[in-house]
């Protein structure tokens, strides 16, 4: 801080010291005017003098007055100061067309870290990247910036690992290579990216799976073993107890297989988290199918499901099976944790914002969820009430799966709840026009 101030003052001093030179110039101009007055007529002299003065003043200013800052790197603001559209200035150059044809993400930058061109695959990954702006808009990874500097300084290529955490977690190997050319119209650096998310995630998944499976399956497994031992011993000839125990054992076994199913589908969703969905799904159509499939469960607890959707088809960009799973998981919760004989309502609407999103609100009139739990519901194996969740066959993974699917779809989940009134789970997905 102190050094900064000192520097500032020093620079200020340099500015002031310039003044004598300017003063000298002014004296010279005055002398020139007097001389001109003596030689020729008045009007010509004035014109001449004004011109000279302006010239001198301008020269002074541009030569030294303001030009003694840091060396002009021509590095421009990565932001708004220069409005750069998505089109590249080098769009028609052969090299950009070559980059564009490559399947892997490729970014070409100049000596000042400005993106000269990036191909389609790269633009898909780095949504905030702008052509003509600094590459730091795409990735602020310190290693990447260092590798670019290294490539420029030493003409050596380097491979760095990028870890993007948003909007989806993604790991990329970036090969940063210099192009040995001083030609201004060619990129100084070419960055070729290779997505290694899947490989990394596989390793992580294996670890998670083992940890969770062993932890979560241990409880029902222990229960099963207890019942088996009782049936082999004390309750060997008790027909009533046998019947009851077998019923519990069967539901515990079912729960175990559901946990395994959910762990597998969570793993599947996680594996694909970095691949954007390409399909187009009509939410109305999916919804009616889902509601129909859940009617028997709802009828068993005397709950009614009411659906309120716009008449025209509502399309979202997405993977049909995954959208189905989101709706099933949330609706199933609403039925399971709502009130016996309650009402579940599903309301589909479009948001008014510029970027239109489809909103699906699923509300129940059950006991509601305490505020302290709301932000935690999407964490895997987080249960509001361990006992009630187990009784109802919950796996603790339903909403975690929903959250991961929505992240992949650039969607959102909002949860609102009031004790004694009910809970509303609202899903938002990017809306696409049905063409």
């Amino acid at each position, binding site marked *: 801080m102190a050094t900064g101030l000192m520097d500032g003052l020093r620079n*200020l001093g340099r500015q002031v010291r310039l003044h004598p030179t300017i003063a000298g110039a002014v004296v010279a101009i005055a002398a020139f005017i007097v001389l001109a007055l003596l030689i020729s007529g008045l009007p010509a002299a004035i014109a001449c003098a004004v011109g000279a003065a302006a010239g001198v003043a301008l020269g002074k200013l541009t030569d030294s007055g303001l030009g003694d800052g840091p060396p002009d790197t021509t590095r421009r*603001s990565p932001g708004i100061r220069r409005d750069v559209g998505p089109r590249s200035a080098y769009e028609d150059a052969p090299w950009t067309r070559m980059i564009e044809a490559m399947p892997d993400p490729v970014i070409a930058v100049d000596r000042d870290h400005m993106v000269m061109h990036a191909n389609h695959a790269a633009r898909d990954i780095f949504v905030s990247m702008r052509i003509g702006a600094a590459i730091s808009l795409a990735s602020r990874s310190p290693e990447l910036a260092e590798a670019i500097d290294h490539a420029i300084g030493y003409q050596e290529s380097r491979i760095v690992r990028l870890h993007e955490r948003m909007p989806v977690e993604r790991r990329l190997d970036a090969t940063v290579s210099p192009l040995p050319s001083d030609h201004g119209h060619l990129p100084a650096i070419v960055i070729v990216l290779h997505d290694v998310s899947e490989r990394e995630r596989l390793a992580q998944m294996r670890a998670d799976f083992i940890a969770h499976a062993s932890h979560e399956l241990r409880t029902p497994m222990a229960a099963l073993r207890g019942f088996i031992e009782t049936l082999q011993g004390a309750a060997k000839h008790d027909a009533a107890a046998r019947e009851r125990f077998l019923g519990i054992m069967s539901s515990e076994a079912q729960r175990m297989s559901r946990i395994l199913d959910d762990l597998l589908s969570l793993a599947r969703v996680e594996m694909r988290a970095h691949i954007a969905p390409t399909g187009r799904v009509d939410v109305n159509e999916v919804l009616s199918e889902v509601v129909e499939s859940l009617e028997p469960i709802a009828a068993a607890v005397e709950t009614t499901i009411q659906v309120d959707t716009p008449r025209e088809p509502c399309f979202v960009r997405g993977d049909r099976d995954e959208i189905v799973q989101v709706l099933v998981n949330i609706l199933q919760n609403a039925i399971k944790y709502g009130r016996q004989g309650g009402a579940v309502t599903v309301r589909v609407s479009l948001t008014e914002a510029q970027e239109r999103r489809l909103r699906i609100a699923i509300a129940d009139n059950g006991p509601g969820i305490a505020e302290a*739990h709301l932000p935690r519901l999407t964490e895997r194996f987080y249960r509001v009430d361990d006992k009630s969740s187990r009784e109802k066959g919950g796996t603790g993974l339903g909403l975690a799966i929903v959250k991961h699917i929505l992240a992949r779809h650039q969607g959102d989940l909002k949860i609102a709840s009031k004790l004694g009134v009910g809970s509303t789970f609202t899903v938002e997905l990017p809306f696409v026009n049905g063409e």
Partner: protein
Amino acid sequence: MEHTVKSYEAELAQLDNKLSHMGGLVEQLLGNAFAALERRDPRLASEAIASDRAIDLMQREIEELAISMIARRQPMAQDLRTIVSTLKVAGDLERIGDLAKNVAKRALAIAPETRPQSLILGLRHMTELATASLKNVLDAYMTRDDEKALKVWRSDTDLDALYNSVFRELLTYMMEDPRNIGLCTHLLFGAKNIERIGDHGKPLEDDRPKGDKTSVTLIENN
């Protein structure tokens, strides 16, 4: 607005670039600090702690450049605002770096612990939110995207609510089993640091009420 003097614009751009670089360092530190805590990895924790120095240096560089620009250029209006806000953002980033460093220090302290990993899930969730808002606010600043910045500003209450919940959860674990107290205390401080990061990630100071209620929370022992 274009400036007639080219190097002035170059300096403004340089200021942005330095801030962006500093932002990248802070993002990396936060990521590493939590990874060290989650994996109980003392080496990664030490690396993260050491990297805070680079952030401090970068902040000093930004301050020097900004102050010398104010002194030499006497900027007005928009430019002055840009320079001053760069100073403020750099200050916030430096604080976030410190808080993330504190998280890494907790990682060093709990490295020998063998308690179950499930205790840390809440912190992981908090870190995800904090990382997201830090990234969004930096992206918003670099692209001067007001709408995005406002969105981050509103989302800070999410992190506060999450912190309240994690706070209660950790206290419950401590009451359940006194052997958890050591680990949970460190995790509590870690959570507090992450919650504070969310406060600094806000684009501008504001008078929105704080959502953090832990200072008045008492868990009944029954």
